[in-house]
C-alpha cells in the first residue's frame, strides 16, 4: 500500500469514526429528508391531478428530494468538521507529518462517501417499502446511488472549501440557508413546465439543482431517459470537478509549510 493511500485510508477511517460517534450529525441528515418526504407527498398529493403531471404518485415524484437534501446536510457536516480541525490545530499537526494536503481532503470525502451511500440506501429502502415503483429497476437504483454519491462529494467539497477558508464552523453553518434557497428554487416540488410563475420557472431552469433532481426522478418515474441522465451526471461531474478543485486550493492555502 502506498504512503498516500495509507494516509487517505487512515484519514477516511477517522472521518467515518468521528461521524458515527456523533449520531446528532447523521440522524438529521436521514430524518429531516424523510419527514419532508412524508409531509410533501401527503400534502401535495393532489398536484398529480394537474394535466401533464408525469406520475400519479407524488411520493414517486418527490423521492428524488431526500438524496439532494442529505447531500446538503453532508456539506454542513464536512465543512464544520474541517473548520474544527483548523481551529483545534489538528491541520497544523497533520502539516508536520509527511501527509499530503489532499490526503486530508480525500480522507474527509471518503468518510462522506460512506455516509452518503448509507443514506441513499436508506431512502431507496424507504421508497420501496412505501410503494414507490422504480421504473428503471435495480440497475436504476444503483445509478441513483452513484449519482447521489457524486452530488454528496460535490457539495461536501464545497463544505470542506468553506471550512478550510473560514476556519469557522459558524461560518459554514451560515451558508446552510443559502443552499436551501437553491434547493427550493428548483423543480423540487413541481415539474419545471408546470411551474406557473414565469420568474420561478426561469430560475428553476437555470438552477443546476433542478437537473440533479430530474435525473434521479427520471430513473424513478420514466425509466431510462438519456437526456435527463446526461444533464444530471454532466452537472454532477462538473460540480465535483469544480468543488474538489476549489477545496484542494483551500487546503493548500491552509496547509502552509515550507
Amino acid at each position, binding site marked *: 500500500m502506498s504512503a498516500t493511500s495509507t494516509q487517505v485510508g487512515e484519514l477516511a477511517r477517522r472521518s467515518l469514526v468521528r461521524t458515527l460517534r*456523533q449520531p446528532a450529525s447523521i440522524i438529521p441528515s436521514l430524518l429531516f429528508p424523510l419527514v419532508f418526504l412524508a409531509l410533501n407527498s401527503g400534502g401535495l398529493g393532489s398536484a398529480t391531478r394537474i394535466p401533464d403531471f408525469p406520475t400519479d404518485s407524488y411520493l414517486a415524484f418527490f423521492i428524488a428530494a431526500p438524496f439532494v437534501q442529505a447531500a446538503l446536510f453532508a456539506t454542513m457536516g464536512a465543512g464544520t468538521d474541517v473548520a474544527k480541525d483548523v481551529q483545534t490545530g489538528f491541520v497544523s499537526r497533520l502539516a508536520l507529518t*509527511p501527509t499530503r494536503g489532499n490526503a486530508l481532503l480525500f480522507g474527509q470525502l471518503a468518510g462522506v462517501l460512506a455516509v452518503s451511500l448509507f443514506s441513499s440506501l436508506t431512502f431507496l429502502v424507504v421508497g420501496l417499502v412505501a410503494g414507490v415503483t422504480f421504473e428503471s429497476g435495480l440497475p436504476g437504483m444503483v445509478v441513483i446511488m452513484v449519482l447521489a454519491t457524486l452530488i454528496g462529494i460535490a457539495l461536501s467539497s464545497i463544505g470542506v472549501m468553506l471550512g478550510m477558508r473560514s476556519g469557522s464552523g459558524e461560518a459554514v453553518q451560515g451558508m446552510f440557508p443559502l443552499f436551501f434557497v437553491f434547493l427550493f428554487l428548483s423543480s423540487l416540488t413541481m415539474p419545471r413546465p408546470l411551474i406557473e410563475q414565469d420568474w420561478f420557472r426561469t430560475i428553476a431552469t437555470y438552477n443546476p439543482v433542478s437537473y440533479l433532481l430530474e435525473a434521479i426522478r427520471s430513473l424513478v418515474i420514466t425509466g431510462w431517459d438519456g437526456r435527463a441522465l446526461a444533464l444530471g451526471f454532466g452537472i454532477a461531474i462538473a460540480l465535483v470537478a469544480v468543488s474538489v478543485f476549489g477545496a484542494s486550493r483551500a487546503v493548500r492555502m491552509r496547509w502552509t*509549510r515550507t
Partner: protein
Amino acid sequence: MTDTNLGIAVHELHKQFKDGPKAVDGISLAVAPGEIYGFLGPNGAGKSTTVHILTTLLRPDGGYATVQGYDVVKQGAQVRASIGAALQEAALDPMLTGREHMRLQTALQGLPRSTRRPRGNELLERVGLIDAADRRVGSYSGGMKRRLDLALALVHEPRVLFLDEPTTGLDPQSRSDLWREVSRLAREDGVTVFLTTQYLEEADVLADHVGIISRGRIVAEGTPEALKAEIGRPTLEVVPVDPADRQRFADVLARFGPAASSAKPSAVAVLLEDGADALASVIRGIDADSLRMDSFQVHKPTLDDVFLAKTGESFAQGDQGASASSEDESLQPAEAPA
C-alpha cells in the same frame, strides 16, 4: 557556521504580520544537541511565531534558521522528519480515543505497519496513558491531553522537540509529570528540546539555557543561574499590617536599595544593595518607625528580576500570574519586634 553540529541555529530571524508589529525582530540563538532551551516571555512576545518558523509552518521575512542542520525554508521536509512538535493547543480530536490517535499518527508518520501498534503502546505506557488508551480524548483531563500530545510528537523518534507552552493551564502535579518526562527525554534520549513558556519557574527548573524574549527581541540569554547572577542582589518584600502604612514602609526600605516589583499588590519590595546582610538593619529601621509587618519575604534573584532589569517591566505584571520560586525563603509569620 557549524550548523550541522547544532540542534538549532537561528540568525537574525524576522517576521512581521500584515498591518501588525514585528512579531519576531532579529532573533539569534543557538541550541546544542540534547539541551533544553527555555524560550521565556509574556503573551504576544513572539515565542509562538518563532516556533512556527522553526517547525516550518511559517516562512520568515528575513534571517536564517537551521534545525538539525537543515534550513527551515529550503529543506522543510527534512526539518519536519527530524522534529516533533506539541503546539500551543493540544490538537486532538475529542471523538477519537488515545489509541486511535496513536494509530493515525504512526500511520501518517510513515512507520511500518508492524511497528505502529507496539510503538503506540510503548509511548502511551511511557506517558502514563495506557489504562486510558481506549477512552475518548474528550473525557481526558488537561494534563492527560498534554501528555498524549507529547506522546504523539514522539512517534517517529525525533531528534528535536518543540513544545509551545506545554504546561499552560495544568495543575501542579500534571506540570511536574510533564517536566519529568521532558527532562528525561533530554538527559536519557539526547533529544534537543525547544520549550516556550510564560512560567518563570518552568524555565528556571527545566532549562539548561534560557532566552528571554520581549516584543520580538531576545533581551537576555544564558543559563538561569548566570542570568540571575547578573542581578546578584536579593529582593525583600514586606506586607504591612495596615495598608495605609505602605508609603512609610517604602520610605524606610528606600534606605537599603532601589524599589523592586512585587507580584503582591499589598507588598512593598526593595532590591537589597548589601544583600541579605542588610536584613537586621532593615528590621531595626522598621521597628524604629514603629511600623508593624504582616509578613516579609526574602528571595534570591529570579528570572522575573532579570526580565525587569532587561526590559524595565515586571514579568508578573504582564500576562503571567505570580509564580512561586523554589528559591523563596519565606520568613512568615514575621513581625517587627514591638
